[in-house]
């Protein structure tokens, strides 16, 4: 049971998909214009990820290693079609908002990554815990980023006006460049928080990359190795 909890909780902070593993950035950047969209996308991913982990783990001994990637994709694709049909039936406005990004869940790196790295090597209950944890972590991250962008960019939260009259929305944040800036700021904030936590525990802070010869790489063109 403790293993189950460990696999479940690692997706919530330690291996948080978009912000720690930096996986699944395409939907993270594209659908987080509003908190609503982020939440809807996240729920679809929870569904697909948990079931795909479950099924991959179920058939993990009978899939030949050579064709495993194709099998994972087939499983993910079937589940995504199911999600798409469900959304069309019960959440049509959200479906039109998310558009092409619902079918694109098939090629979301998190689905394939968890299938390959975890579900194909672990028993069913752990695979489901991993899928649920990662999916919830992904949903929380997308909702957070969406809320941040929506709040700054349109002055609303989940569609409700919450800022004062005088606030002029910083529309840059709901445009495409705002997604990159928002993601970068969240990543920076998380690193800052981690280092603050480490310092409190008396550990050395993790240094970021420094601008020196190793990070520049310009001399590669000159034949440096």
């Amino acid at each position, binding site marked *: 049971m403790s293993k189950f909890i460990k696999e479940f909780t690692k997706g919530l902070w330690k291996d948080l998909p978009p912000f720690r593993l930096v996986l699944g950035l395409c939907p993270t950047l594209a659908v987080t214009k509003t908190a609503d969209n982020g939440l809807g996308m996240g729920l679809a991913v929870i569904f697909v990820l948990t079931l795909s982990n479950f099924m991959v783990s179920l058939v993990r001994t009978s899939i030949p290693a050579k064709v495993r990637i194709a099998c994972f994709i087939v499983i993910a694709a079937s589940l995504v079609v199911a999600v798409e049909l469900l959304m069309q039936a019960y959440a049509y406005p959200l479906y039109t908002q998310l558009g092409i990004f619902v079918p694109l869940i098939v090629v979301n790196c998190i689905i394939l990554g968890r299938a390959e790295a975890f579900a194909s090597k672990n028993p069913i209950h752990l695979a489901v815990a991993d899928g649920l944890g990662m999916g919830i972590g992904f949903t929380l991250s997308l909702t957070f980023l969406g809320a941040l962008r929506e709040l700054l960019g349109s002055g609303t939260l989940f569609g409700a006006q919450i800022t004062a009259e005088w606030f002029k*929305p910083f*529309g*840059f944040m709901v445009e495409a460049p705002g997604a990159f800036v928002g993601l970068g700021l969240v990543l920076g904030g998380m690193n800052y928080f981690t280092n603050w936590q480490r310092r409190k525990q008396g550990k050395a802070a993790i240094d970021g990359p420094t*601008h020196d*010869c190793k990070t520049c790489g*310009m*001399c590669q063109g000159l*034949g*440096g*190795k």
Partner: protein
Amino acid sequence: MIRPPKTLFTVSCPPHIHCGRTFNGLMLETILALMPAALLAVVTYGFPALRVMALSCSVAVLVEAACWKVMGRPQEVDNFNALLLGLIFSFLLPATAPWWLVTVGSAITIVLGKAIFGGLGGSPLNAALLSWASLHLSWPESMDIELNMLGSSFADPLAQLKHFGVEAVANIPLTDLLLGKQVAGLGVSHILALLVGGLYLLLRGRIRWHMPVSFLTGVLATATLFFLVEPGMHPSPLFHLATGTVIFGAFFLITDPSSSPVGRIPMLAFGFLAGALVMVVRVWGTHPDGVAFAILLANLLTPMLEKLRPKPFGLNISGDNHA
């Protein structure tokens, strides 16, 4: 496993030219070169222009000091770079810009344009233009120069050209444009004052001639091309040189050391490309003045252009590369 390349030659952050001159001196002289245009801006637009410039500069300096404090880095706000960035940013605004616009823009210039990339010499994009572009996307009506300067007795020639076609600007004499009888960002409309400042920097060797010259050549060549290919559809090439942010951009924006290439050929290519893009945005784009977007796009190509470099003496490049 990617192995870092062996250290051949360490390239430190720009600016690279050292000859007993100090960085503070370079910044101060650039500010000095901007002074004629700043004075004329105050003369033309009066107190509001002074207010915008002062607010932008002070916010820039305060925000930078706060950034180094938060990031736990040595306090280097006294090198006048923040002051210069604040001044350059304020030059791009309409003189009637509200205080919150100036404050937010100036803070973005420093935080997103400079501090977040590691400070001096680290920013891949021109900080002032980055801020201008993000404000322009967010509050287009507050950044629209023509709309905010309706009280002025002059018009914005580029907006006239965009909205009313070439006939609207056909009768504006070139001398009027040169003497600043036009509306643009508060500091950029006085072409002659900017030329004086730019030539001062060139003669003192503070900026190199390659980028201004190739940028102006790029604008002129592309404008001439449009002028010749579609006669009667475009104003004269000299009109394009004397309007908008072109002269200011040529001497003060594309010469930003951290976002422009280093070598001679890269600098020439960089300037020409930016100049050509200005005309592309002006003719086919939705924005009246394309200088900011053109320079930002060219900034993005800087790392690629840096690859255009002479073959080092005594180094067998092809043999080493493909080994």
